[in-house]
């Protein structure tokens, strides 16, 4: 992280730095996926931290949702919602491990 930053969010003297936890992604991602992606595990491309999507730091006072790694602040996921399309960028995570029900596996 570049020196001179305020830190990892929270109160910065001018107002809250603007992030919420990854549960803020639940509603917007429910529009796209049939599973609860906030329960999925992701691995940060930048630092290798592994954790649930719900633990990401989500900046939503922006043109889109930006979810950052709580370990290194790198962007893990971005979601832009336009009236007729959504853009989901996952290049900040190597993979998502999504808990599934065995009952749902077709044979």
């Amino acid at each position, binding site marked *: 992280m*570049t*020196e*001179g*930053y*305020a*830190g*990892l*969010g929270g109160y*910065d003297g*001018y*107002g809250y*730095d*603007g*992030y919420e936890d990854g549960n803020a992604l639940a509603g917007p991602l429910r529009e796209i996926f049939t599973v609860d992606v906030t329960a999925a595990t992701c691995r940060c491309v930048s630092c290798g931290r592994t954790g649930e999507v719900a633990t990401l730091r989500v*900046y939503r*006072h*922006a*043109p*889109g949702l*930006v979810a*950052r790694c709580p370990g290194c*602040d790198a*962007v893990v996921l*971005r979601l*832009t919602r*336009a009236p007729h*399309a*959504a*853009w989901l*960028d996952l290049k900040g995570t190597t993979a998502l491990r999504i808990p599934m029900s065995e009952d749902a596996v077709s044979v």
Partner: protein
Amino acid sequence: MGIVSPGFQGRPRRGDTRLPPGQYLTEGFPVLSAGPTPRIPTDRWEFVITTETGQEYRWSWADLMALPSETPTVDIHCVTKWSKLGTIWQGVSLDTLFTEVDSAADFALVHSYGGYTTNLPLEDLLDGQAWIAYRYEGEALAPEHGGPARLLVPHLYFWKSAKWVRGIQLLLTDEPGFWETAGYHNYGDPWREQRYQGD
């Protein structure tokens, strides 16, 4: 008197003609941010223009302060639909910074402290259209609004006016920036309502 009276639908309210389609006026100054707010001490701040050949032109904060400044009064338009009219800034015109820069590039990728990027044609940064702004309404530009210095390109949506600007990379081919790779329009003209890709 004609069939259609000029007053039939009411006169445009003051400022309406300065409001692009789909925008609403705000008196506040909303803070939008895609990450933690960088805090850059001016004694460690620098601004770098890098040409397509790798040649670098650098300015320290003292260098920037020594350059002639301008005080543009401009309307700003955020893609999230708020507009703010008559904002007063102080900064150095990019025409001044580019005076000695030798480049054949047509495109610019703007870089910020904190990793943000945005792209635009180089010609949109020149001819009195863009500044490195360091004062807003007579006060030092606050960190949450991009201080110590931000790019100011008011004729495009405000995501192009990169906060915490640290440099401009000149390119022979266009390279999309942070929001431009996440669904937002590559150019972002508020008067043509170029919000998203395909608009």
